[in-house]
């Protein structure tokens, strides 16, 4: 084991994959610059050369198609976007080509493509640098979607994605890059499609991924101090989704709160709530509740932005409400975020 932060863990996974497989290459806006996409691509150009680590024109749509074509031609591209908002420019290529190629060819060809994109939520990122389009990509069959939360997830899932013969979208979160955690000394792939129980509990299940899993863990600590044991299930992989792990937890607690790191309407949380209603109804002792971004455009003004996102405090408040208990009259400074910008 060694201790790495989220960005370093990704960097180690990329280096490992490129060392092992000469067909792996990295492309994207700024992947070879001095900022190295939050250190994730740091040193890779010098180590593997400009042909395998290169900056691209600001042409997300075509560059996505080019990555798909390179994948069909026998390479394994990792296409990087420093903001997930830019994925909207890539959707024709990802949905109409990458997601459909396997089916459209009757199983005769596939697209081993990895797309990494950073959810920009943080500090005044505003309308177009903060979005998480997870549910759009869950909607269309043929593309896998993962949202690593810890450094170990980030490393293991990225390796699994690169080894996967299908298109895989990895949604990384800006607020997770500084998290430090244990990762295997030699990077190893972690299979997609397995949820992680981040914390065991018996009073309610909180299903939350990515940054919302971290906020839920903070909320759970606070809840525990007030006698409520929350179980935190992090799906990690949205496609394929580990339905069994979610249903197992509901069977144990009888209550489900889903915390979405995007909007709730037609969102990942809606799908998880539908699974609970359809397959876990008998276990439920209370209505399923959901939290997510408010159904408006992300504002910049700090008080408005704070009200726009769910966080540890709103998660804890919702949990108390589900249990019919008042929010304890206690100060909770640990429930606020300390992140500063600029990007």
């Amino acid at each position, binding site marked *: 084991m060694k201790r790495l932060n989220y960005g370093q863990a990704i960097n180690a996974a990329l280096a490992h994959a490129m060392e092992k497989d000469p067909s792996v290459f990295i492309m994207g806006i700024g992947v070879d610059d001095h900022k190295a996409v939050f250190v994730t691509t740091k040193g890779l150009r010098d180590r593997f050369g400009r042909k395998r680590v290169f900056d691209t*024109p600001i042409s997300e749509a075509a560059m996505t198609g080019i990555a798909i*074509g*390179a*994948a*069909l031609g026998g390479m394994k591209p990792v296409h990087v976007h420093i903001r997930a908002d830019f994925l909207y420019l890539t959707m024709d290529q990802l949905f109409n*080509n990458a997601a459909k190629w396997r089916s*459209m*060819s*009757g199983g005769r060809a596939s697209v081993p493509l990895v797309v990494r994109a950073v959810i920009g939520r943080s500090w005044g990122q505003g309308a177009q640098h903060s979005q998480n389009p997870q549910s759009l990509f869950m909607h269309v069959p043929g593309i896998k979607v993962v949202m690593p939360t810890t450094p170990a997830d980030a490393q293991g899932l990225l390796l699994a994605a690169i080894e996967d013969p299908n298109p895989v979208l990895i949604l990384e979160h800006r607020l997770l890059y500084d998290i430090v955690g244990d990762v295997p000394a030699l990077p190893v792939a972690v299979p997609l499609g397995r949820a992680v129980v981040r914390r065991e509990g018996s009073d309610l299940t909180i299903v939350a991924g990515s940054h919302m899993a971290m906020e839920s863990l903070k909320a759970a600590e606070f809840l525990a101090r007030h006698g409520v044991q929350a179980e935190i299930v992090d799906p990690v992989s949205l496609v394929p989704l580990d339905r069994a792990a979610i249903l197992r937890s509901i069977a144990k607690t009888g209550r489900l709160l889903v915390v979405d790191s995007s909007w709730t309407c037609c969102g990942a949380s809606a799908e998880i709530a539908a699974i609970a209603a359809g397959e876990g109804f008998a276990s439920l002792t209370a209505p399923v509740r959901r939290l997510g971004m408010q159904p408006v455009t992300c504002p910049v003004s700090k008080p408005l932005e704070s009200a726009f996102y769910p966080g540890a405090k709103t998660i804890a408040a919702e949990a108390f409400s589900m249990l019919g208990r008042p929010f304890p009259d206690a100060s909770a400074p640990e429930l606020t975020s300390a992140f500063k910008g600029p990007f």
Partner: protein
Amino acid sequence: MLKTAGKGADEDLALYRLMLKIRLAEERIVAIYPTDKIQSPIHLSIGQEAVAAGVCMALAAGDHIHGTYRGHGIYIAKGGDLGRMFAELYGKDAGCAGGKGGSMHLAAQSVGLVGCSAIVAGLIPVATGDALAARMQGSSRVVCSFFGDGAVDEGVFFESVNFAVLKGLPIVYVCENNGYAIHSRVADRHKQDKLFRLAEGLGLRGRRYDGNDARTVFKTMSRAVAAARRGAAPVLLEYMTSRWHEHVGPGTDFQEAYRHPKDRANAAKNDPIRKMAARLKRRGLSAGRLEAVAAEIRRDVDRAVAFAEESPFPPIERLHADLYAESR
């Protein structure tokens, strides 16, 4: 082999054979269509055969092509199996895509047809990426991207050619200009209607040629392929041709208002197959010999259609197959 063969006579006969195969196969599709055995849209390339034949004959077996929903012609010209094409149109299990792709998504990986797309310009970047892969792998393959005149309206055309020029990729962009993007004339969509010049500012050299003369297409494409294989900069070849049938479907629509009044007459005058037949006759090929070629192709088409008719549909269990490749 032609007894009186001059230079290129065998090539002419081969081009004739390819064009006629496309024509007769598509005429058979038109004949079958009212039976509703082909339950999917069809986009015919009758009238445009010279481009598919000339371009594909200039490519080596290992070279790749990427096409559009108007893909029967390039499928046949690159050497795709005719029986599997008809089976695909019929939605049968033995089709080139297991019946899941249909007419708009023909592919024949073993002969280099990577795929066809129903999204205008959708595969221009994909073909460009295939050329990037070829370059990265040190492969000698050249990639050809086929698209229509409507595709240059799309942003990815410009984005893709910019990247190809930037990296000097081994790709030839082939614009099949049949004058209409569905029902819209080039002049109604572009001030610059010389499409081969559109990307000159990005450094993409282009030339326009008669796309109804298979020999011209073959010669110009052969030069472009040789240059691409040598590592020369990518080029755009614009071949002027005409679509005889409606945009989608088996009928003709020369009477419709969007058409130029002379389209019908020009189509007949510029028929690439009749022109090639005349050239072959001038070179000493008898009418009987040409008829023998046609008879042989008709037998091929008969066999292909029979294969499609006799093949089973995919079992219902196949519905959920093929979404993801198994992890290795």
